[in-house]
């Protein structure tokens, strides 16, 4: 697996943002699992982390839009945008659960949400690199 996706010498903005999001999600997932094991619900600081991921997702859409306008050849735009749009829903829903479920199970939900986002981002990266 490439840490930074390169084609020739071009660094792809979308892939860079993608790996940043994967990293953030990994941290958030591990953090949530630790709290779940300690029998604690989601904390406010974790929700700030979730908000950072959400902002990164929006940034990724902007970067993708600019790259496409600049002539990046995208093989499957419908799948690409489908992933990006559905990804936006994950963290807000996990946040709602965090408020309504004040038990360890909200931590489990946050961990699941973070892992699902990670997998989605890997697919986003894959689709982006396929022209």
């Amino acid at each position, binding site marked *: 697996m490439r840490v930074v996706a390169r084609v020739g010498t071009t660094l792809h903005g979308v892939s860079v943002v993608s790996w940043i999001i994967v990293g953030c999600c990994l941290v958030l997932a591990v953090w949530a699992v630790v709290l779940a094991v300690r029998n604690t619900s989601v904390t406010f600081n974790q929700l700030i982390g979730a908000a950072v991921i959400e902002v990164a997702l929006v940034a990724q859409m902007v970067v993708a839009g600019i790259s496409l306008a600049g002539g990046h050849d995208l093989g499957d735009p419908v799948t690409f945008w489908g992933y990006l749009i559905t990804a936006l829903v994950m963290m807000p*829903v996990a946040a709602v659960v965090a408020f309504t479920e004040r038990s360890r199970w909200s931590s489990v939900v946050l961990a699941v949400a973070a892992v699902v986002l990670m997998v989605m981002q890997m697919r986003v990266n894959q689709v982006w690199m396929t022209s």
Partner: protein
Amino acid sequence: MDDVVTAPEDVEDTRRPAYGAGRVLIFVYGVFALAATARATVQLIRDASEATFAYSLSALSAVVYILATVALAHNGRRMRRVGWITVSFELIGVLTIGTLSMLHPEYFPRDTVWSHFGQGYGYVPLVLPILGLIWMWRSSPARIAAG
């Protein structure tokens, strides 16, 4: 009715809101409702005529996932019945389509959520309805009341 209990007004319930492990199940069901809907939408927008049977199945499974999510989250008397039906339907669906996709891959030129027992989704589509049925049984008011 004499046996209706009303809470005294000065008593406050200070317990933190919690539903338990079922919340995770509902969330994962929600994720699959979303994933299946997105997948079916993408397939139907992009190339509907390419594999009509497979794509119709994707759309059907999306509808069933949405119904199951709503039913599990609502947990009312009638909604629990919908929950039993939809979750059972999913189990039957993933077993039937899983077996069929192994024996007759030519029926499925494109994958569905249920092809190869949900292999493309880490077999979660196979495990999810089993967990769902266990949850429906565990949380059954009749069973809990019977002790």
